């Protein structure tokens, strides 16, 4: 096994790519009673949801925001959340209804998130790097990330595990995580449950219940704890023992590749 997880060539197991492994890891976060919603460029969570639904969570619901296909059939998964193929689904609703329901707070239990920056407390930023008024990098915007404040569990994923993405504090708070930690989180009294997991090409992380800071849970096969720490721009909580992320089963892998028959996760 090679020491990586960042490319198709050197991934663990039978040529499992990072993207494929991440889809499996995200699927494992999903429960049978979840209703999940995802947005922009969401091939990964699409595949994760379809996989979960066809394995351990048959009653899972998932909505591909944008097009708003409900349980899209995904053969194959698509790169754009607004692709017409996402209307090959059990049903579909207007986007304005999904935005309504995101606000209701008790409908969607899982919201997939990401960002240009993700910080130690799981706050996400897709707006800018640097000062908002004169940014060094202007990102696209917040989209629906402010809704993270109201959702049951936020699942964060990114293909970029490096110190520019994983920063101590986001430059612009678009999608709230645990804000500035326990005191501010408690003071805000937000209706949502906060971030639950962070999945990257290197590892899967959670949050330390005391400090609400990101904590390493498992490293993907071939990745060392040191690599993860070096790639993270803030002080990561590292437990004494960090297991290796369980390999995808044959069944999971076969299914992921059937769902992603277009190979969107192959390149990652």
């Amino acid at each position, binding site marked *: 096994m090679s020491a990586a997880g960042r490319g198709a060539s050197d991934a663990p197991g039978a040529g499992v790519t990072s993207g494929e492994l991440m889809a499996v890891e995200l699927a494992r976060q999903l429960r049978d009673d979840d209703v999940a919603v995802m947005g922009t460029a969401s091939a990964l969570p699409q595949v994760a949801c379809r996989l979960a639904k066809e394995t351990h969570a048959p009653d899972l619901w998932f909505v591909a925001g944008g097009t708003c296909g409900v349980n899209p059939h995904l053969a194959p998964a698509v790169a754009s959340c607004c692709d*017409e193929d996402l209307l090959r689904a059990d049903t579909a609703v207007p986007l304005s209804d999904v*935005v309504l329901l995101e606000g209701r707070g008790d409908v969607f239990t899982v919201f997939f998130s990401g960002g240009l920056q993700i910080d130690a407390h799981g706050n996400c930023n897709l707006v800018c790097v640097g000062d908002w008024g004169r940014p060094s*990098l202007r990102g696209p*915007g*917040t*989209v629906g990330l402010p809704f993270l404040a109201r959702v049951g569990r936020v699942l964060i994923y990114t293909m970029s595990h490096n110190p520019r993405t994983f920063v101590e504090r986001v430059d*612009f708070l*678009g999608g709230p995580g645990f804000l500035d930690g326990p005191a501010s989180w408690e003071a805000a009294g937000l209706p949502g449950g906060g971030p639950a997991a962070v999945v990257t090409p290197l590892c899967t992380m959670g949050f330390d219940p005391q400090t609400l800071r990101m904590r390493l849970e498992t490293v993907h096969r071939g990745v060392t704890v040191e690599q993860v720490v070096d790639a993270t721009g803030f002080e990561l909580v590292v437990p004494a023992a960090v297991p290796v992320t369980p390999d995808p089963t044959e069944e999971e892998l076969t299914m992921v590749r059937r769902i992603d028959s277009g190979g969107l996760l192959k390149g990652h």
Partner: protein
Amino acid sequence: MSKVLSLHDAVERHVPDGVGLLAVGGMHLQNNPMALVREAVRQQRRIRRLLTSPCGALNADLLIAAGLVDEIATSYVGFEHLGLAPAFRRAVESGSLRVLECDEAYITHGLGAGAGGLPFAALPVGLEVSDVCRANPESYRLVEDPFTGTQVLAGAPLRPDVALVHASEADVAGNAVLGGAHFLDRVMALAARTVVLQVERVVPTEQISRHPVGTTIPGFLVHAVVEIPGGCHPTASHGHYRTDEEHLRRYLSLAASADGAQAYVDDYVRGTTEAEYLRAQHPAEARHAREELR
């Protein structure tokens, strides 16, 4: 009285130079009303404020590349999996474009408030913790909830002066069918003072009548209909053609520099008619039909 106009006339009559709030429909790389957008560039329409659906793409970036936009109200301008929006980035980073930072909830409920004549939209508790509302005090204010006494976030109504929206088909009276997803296009049409529709084809009213409740835009909201098959190119048109990612990549690579962006605008927009552009870039063979989406 038919509302069908040529592309030139629709923009000339209904998109005034210096338009106060221009909304562009579609979302991400789909259903962008690009023919109308390109014509607005050809006719050099200055836009005091541009509004995108929650996610704008080329519909916004091209107008910015052409130097026509003073301000943008948006929650996203980008090219999704293809990359960031080059003209938008450059303009914001250089300080030449003012951003009214918005989130998806506000754009949706703000347009709803505009459509409903509501004074404002009270927004869900919790949205006030993001920095969006602090970055945009013009659109977001705190208000005391008269039922609970707590301070909650309010968004100003969004009333576009003109909305440019794509639909699959329309009749001459402007009754239109949205093919595929709605994105925020119906809401935009409900909220705008003037709606200019770009459609793949004009059809008899009987064909519109067959569509069920909830899938159409009623003609009394529509001021002009432009029939322009293929006109969303290089973005997709649900039910008619897919995103031309190759063309978009060419745009992204050119527009990565200011000169390149200028060259794209000159070569693909100002220096060509819409018919020439489509003939060269988007031949009819590139289209398909998924009638079941309509």
